[in-house]
């Protein structure tokens, strides 16, 4: 039978439809469900009230991340330290109790495997290519980097998946973001995705699933692809995905939850077959030239407010649309920036290297490379490096990166979401700036009144050294 050419997304979708309703809504099977403490308590409460069970506890993995302090979790005697904030403590203990109650695997805050859900999933081989993966967190899109169809869901949907291992969904439209060529030396996957969000805008991907295609993604590491897919949601798309290839298989092989033996061979054969067919068409296509991309930072309070580091703070009048002009005015006021100011003249007092966007080993290495043998600037008051998981932490320490980081005057912390959304004690003081490797620069995101500039780990490390927004290429020699 000759089939119509299909995209990667369409193939994964078709393989997971349990039931198609008349109106086109589909009941879709979910292969992997990640659960954390913030968006799950009300879902478990719902199950309890209705007397329902978790259908497939074996396809579900629970790990705390958002509320955990990034300071020591056990004392010198190995005793677990209490969580100071009573509400955080309550959410954390709810997860710790709910997981065993419903028979779900749980990684504890004190386990070495603990980390941010979106770091833990791929790292454990729990997230797999071609799988449908959900989590009550919008950055679930991250797992698209491994070739999964992964997206964030709300708490009622968390309950729906727990009870039925399915979701009711409508198929999305398909969008291709194609980047061919080579990224310039010093330009990282984070710069690329910030640039892409700047080009398509925060609503550009609404209703679409993005497939990132082209030689730039083919040459990129899995960790880089995770960074790119992570911020698909900042471009409005529910999910972003990169086709699984040899790089992906190499990354996954031997990870704890990855398939073994015969299953592994079957998996590889299927994973190779799900790539977008030649001749398959996308509903929308965006083409970007890799050569156009510079190290990029944000200046405003929307992730689309991006600018190359060599540029200046834009003036509201430079935007065509009146509502964007108004938004820019409000943003600039909040950010305390004057149009026309050179970005490299903007002083920064806080540094946050971490979050599910950029807290993997390659990110820590990139930051350490810049920090090596240097000292943090005097005006930088607070600078923390938060690994994405206990295993990333362990690896970094084995490579001596923690020493490079602390020698430079930055703090080396325990894994978690941390200052990405400041639900834990890691907050940026009101009115101060933060060079942050996270994914959102919304008003108050890193604490009330905080001013966030998004950038890559290498760029954030460069800011730590100079105390101002900096082109990392001016600080370290970058090999082509």
């Amino acid at each position, binding site marked *: 039978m000759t089939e119509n050419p299909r995209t990667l997304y369409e193939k994964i979708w078709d393989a997971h439809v349990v039931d198609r309703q008349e109106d086109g809504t589909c009941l879709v099977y979910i292969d992997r469900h990640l659960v954390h403490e913030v968006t799950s308590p009300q879902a478990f409460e719902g199950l309890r009230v209705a007397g329902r069970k978790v259908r497939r506890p074996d396809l579900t993995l629970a790990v705390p991340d958002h509320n955990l302090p990034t300071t020591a979790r056990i004392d010198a005697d190995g005793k677990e330290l209490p969580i100071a904030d009573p509400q955080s403590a309550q959410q954390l203990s709810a997860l710790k109790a709910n997981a065993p109650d419903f028979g779900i695997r749980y990684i504890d805050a004190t386990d070495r495997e603990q980390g941010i859900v979106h770091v833990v999933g791929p790292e454990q081989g729990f997230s797999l290519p071609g799988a449908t993966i959900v989590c009550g967190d919008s950055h679930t899109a991250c797992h698209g980097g491994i070739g999964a169809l992964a997206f964030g869901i709300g708490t009622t949907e968390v309950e729906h998946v727990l009870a*039925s291992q399915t979701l009711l969904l409508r198929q999305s439209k398909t969008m291709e973001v194609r980047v061919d060529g080579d990224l310039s030396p010093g330009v990282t996957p984070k710069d690329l995705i910030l640039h892409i969000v700047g080009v398509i805008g*925060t609503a550009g991907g609404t209703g679409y699933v993005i497939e990132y295609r082209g030689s730039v993604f083919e040459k990129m590491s899995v960790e880089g692809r995770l960074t790119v897919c992570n911020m698909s949601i900042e471009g409005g798309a529910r999910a972003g995905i990169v086709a699984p290839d040899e790089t992906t298989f190499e990354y996954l092989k031997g990870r704890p939850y990855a398939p073994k033996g015969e*299953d592994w061979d079957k998996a590889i054969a299927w994973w190779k077959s799900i790539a977008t067919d030649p001749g398959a068409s996308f509903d929308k296509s965006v083409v970007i030239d890799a050569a156009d991309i510079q190290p990029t930072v944000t200046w405003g309070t929307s992730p689309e407010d991006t600018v190359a580091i060599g540029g200046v703070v834009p003036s509201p009048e430079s935007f065509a649309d009146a509502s964007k002009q108004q938004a820019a005015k409000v943003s600039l006021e909040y950010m305390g920036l004057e149009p026309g100011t050179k970005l490299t003249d903007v002083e920064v007092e806080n540094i946050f290297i971490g979050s599910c966007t950029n807290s993997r080993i390659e990110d820590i290495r990139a930051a350490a490379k810049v920090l090596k043998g240097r000292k943090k600037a005097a005006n930088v008051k607070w600078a923390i490096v938060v690994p994405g998981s206990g295993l990333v932490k362990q690896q970094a320490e084995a490579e001596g990166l923690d020493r490079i980081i602390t020698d430079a005057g930055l703090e080396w912390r325990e894994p978690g979401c941390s200052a990405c959304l400041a639900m834990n004690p890691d907050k940026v003081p009101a009115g101060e700036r933060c060079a942050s490797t996270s994914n959102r620069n919304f008003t*108050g995101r890193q604490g009330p009144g905080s001013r966030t500039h998004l950038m890559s780990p290498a760029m954030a490390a460069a800011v730590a050294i100079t105390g101002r927004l900096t082109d990392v290429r001016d600080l370290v020699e970058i090999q082509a």
Partner: protein
Amino acid sequence: MEPISHVNGAAIPFGRKNVDTDVIIPAHWLKTISREGLGQGAFEAVKTEDGNVFVDPQYEGAPILIAGDNFGCGSSREHAAWALLDMGLKCVIAPSFSDIFSGNAFKNGILTVALPQEAIDRLMEVAQTDPIDVDLETQTVTTPFQDRYAFEIDSFRKHCLLNGLDEVGLTLGKVGKIAEYEDKAASGLPFLAKTVASAA
């Protein structure tokens, strides 16, 4: 879930575009383990602005909110829908909504109505003085001044909202089909159908 067929009453003329979920309910309110009481934290930052509509007694308990493009963008937090519900809102009217937000709103029995910007502009004006009427049955928004705007809604969503149907219960009615899928997957996609039990 409460059935919803008709919403009539004061509409809060907010009108702002790109209202993200951090504006609707800031992160520090997410620490609750219950669905109730979030109305207090709704639009917390906006409520400190001079002359904002949320502290205007005229709109206290209003069942309708009027907003600008891309309402509910940002995070997937369902707390945004719970916060609106806790404020007493039953319906949000805007030119467009973020996908996740409109899904969350629907699952909690909040009707999201997308109308063109011209209609929004007119409703913003009417809401200064008069109530607005949203009828889900006929899919129309009307004002006391003969304005009449038709809106689209997915027929499944409409059916669920009108009857107050709980999605989880509906899906569990199809448990036979789910089991059938699982059997098929166990042989066809065994690597996805299970996780390795021995994993750490």
